[in-house]
């Protein structure tokens, strides 16, 4: 089956599915997607099956998986420090709910929908409840169990990222339901497209560690929810000031630390590419922290800790899809640009007038998109981008960015819209004023 025809097929299917999805209630849509997965398998299991277990690779993947798990609590602190004191625990809850709920969803259907053979649009349910996986199953040189959880940690942090946009006003019960539907209808399909043998992978678009799957998808979904849920009471007039930046900085540090597992772990082994990804990750984060700091210094004469922390995260976002595909010099360019692009990115909400509480759109959406395009430009290791004379790669990246963003935005808006009708997506005004910690969770962050 030729690549061209294949793309035609996939895209047409993709669109048709999409139409259905938009038309129907999420749960139906889920069904449709699942039914479609009956089709003949066009994709294949992500990592090529290899004969024997390598203890070094396994050790590294066990650690990487633990590191990526740590990123979600890191995110909880990164976000928790930026909200107002009265909402700190509710923001932390958003991440811990993702850990608990997607942690279960993943082993039940998530992994199978994402990495089951299925077709080019969605996996299958052959691994429902991890069916068919034993301690002896291998994915490449590592046990499938650790590959499964390494991927699972990505599925967990992605919706948690979205929570930053709706922080300080989202209704917790609705958020919990949203997590489950979003993971099923948005994350799992996209993960399948890019890594599970789906159409994007077949098309040849590159995403080393999740620039489109994780960051772009969460950023685009965040924009949809920002549009849907509306502004916080008093925004932007009143003071919306981070209540504890030391917590935010600690969160950024844990994110950075965990990101080494996120990116270098995506090599799925302790090899030269893992070390390259580690190198580019460190360079991009440092460079972006520096460039964001310089932007603040030049334009406001005040380099801030929040700025450096935001820059480092932006750099990590942008290098994610490129980590194992680019050389250090390119990483330096991508990182430096990340700090500048996202510095302006977080200002977009002001212009377009939506309330993205913690700048998920500005950093993960815009940063994720730029990173994916940048990968098409700078790819040169085990792949070829513009600088290696392969201009077409930029186009492939662009297609994947456009369609993933579109899909994530539309579906998330649809899901959010239905949930808003059914359960209400937002708390009462007086609850919002009194604070979510006290009203929804019956506790307060500090008694100092």
């Amino acid at each position, binding site marked *: 089956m030729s690549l061209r025809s294949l793309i035609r097929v996939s895209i047409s299917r993709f669109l048709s599915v999409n139409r259905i999805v938009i038309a129907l209630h999420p749960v139906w849509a889920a069904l449709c997607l699942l039914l479609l997965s009956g089709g003949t398998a066009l994709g294949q299991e992500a990592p090529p099956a290899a004969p024997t277990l390598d203890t070094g690779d396994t050790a590294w993947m066990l650690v990487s998986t633990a590191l990526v798990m740590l990123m979600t609590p890191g995110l909880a602190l990164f976000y928790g420090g930026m909200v107002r004191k009265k909402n700190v625990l509710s923001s932390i809850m958003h991440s811990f709910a993702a850990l608990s709920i997607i942690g279960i969803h993943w082993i039940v259907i998530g992994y199978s929908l994402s990495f089951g053979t299925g077709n080019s649009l969605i996996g299958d349910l052959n691994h429902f409840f991890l069916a068919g996986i034993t301690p002896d199953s291998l994915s490449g040189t590592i046990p499938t169990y650790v590959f499964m959880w390494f991927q699972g940690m990505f599925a967990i942090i992605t919706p948690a990222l979205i929570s930053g946009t709706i922080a300080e006003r989202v209704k917790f019960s609705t958020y919990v339901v949203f997590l489950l539907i979003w993971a099923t209808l948005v994350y799992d399909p996209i993960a399948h497209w890019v890594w599970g043998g789906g159409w994007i992978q077949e098309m040849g678009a590159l995403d080393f560690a999740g620039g489109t799957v994780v960051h772009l998808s969460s950023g685009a979904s965040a924009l949809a929810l920002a549009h849907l849920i509306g502004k916080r009471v008093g925004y932007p007039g*009143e003071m919306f000031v981070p209540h504890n930046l030391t917590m935010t900085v600690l969160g950024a540090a844990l994110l950075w630390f965990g990101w080494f597992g996120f990116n270098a772990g995506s090599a799925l082994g302790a090899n030269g590419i893992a070390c390259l990804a580690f190198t580019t990750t460190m360079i991009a984060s440092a460079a972006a922290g520096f460039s964001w700091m310089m932007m603040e210094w030049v334009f406001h004469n005040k380099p801030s800790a929040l700025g450096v922390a935001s820059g480092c995260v932006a750099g990590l976002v942008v290098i994610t899809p490129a980590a194992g595909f680019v050389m250090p010099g390119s990483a330096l360019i991508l990182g430096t640009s990340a700090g500048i692009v996202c510095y302006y990115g977080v200002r977009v909400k002001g212009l377009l007038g939506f309330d993205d509480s913690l700048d998920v759109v500005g950093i993960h959406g815009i940063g994720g998109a730029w990173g994916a395009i940048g990968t098409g430009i700078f790819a040169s290791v085990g792949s070829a981008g513009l600088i290696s004379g392969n201009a077409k790669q930029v186009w492939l990246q662009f297609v994947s960015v456009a369609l993933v963003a579109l899909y994530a935005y539309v579906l998330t808006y649809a899901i959010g819209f239905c949930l808003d009708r059914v359960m209400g997506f937002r708390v009462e005004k007086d609850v919002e*004023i*009194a604070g979510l910690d*006290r*009203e929804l969770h*019956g*506790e*307060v962050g500090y008694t100092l």
Partner: protein
Amino acid sequence: MIKIEAIVKPFRLTEVQEALSILGIQGMTVTEVKGFGRQKGHIELYRGAEYQVNFVPKVLLTVVTTEDRAEQVVDAIQKAAHTGKIGDGKIFISHIDEVMRIRTRETGSEAI
């Protein structure tokens, strides 16, 4: 000189300040306090242990002003702080003997 102490709901503070600055009053001192009264507090739960927190966070505004302006100040504060719900707070008015501006040793109405 008159000292006006108003205990109001924290989220009304900005409104009250704007109301006062319209009267040309910039100077005031604000203290965070815990209020006990008709307005009930909330309940917190920690591992099943239930605690009734029976105070409500309030802010205490202190404005010292001259006899002649006192009434309009009280009026402005009352209007700005008013929500009509229990817990809107109180205003206490009292006489003080003297005011001094530390910077200049000015006293009386010059001092405020």
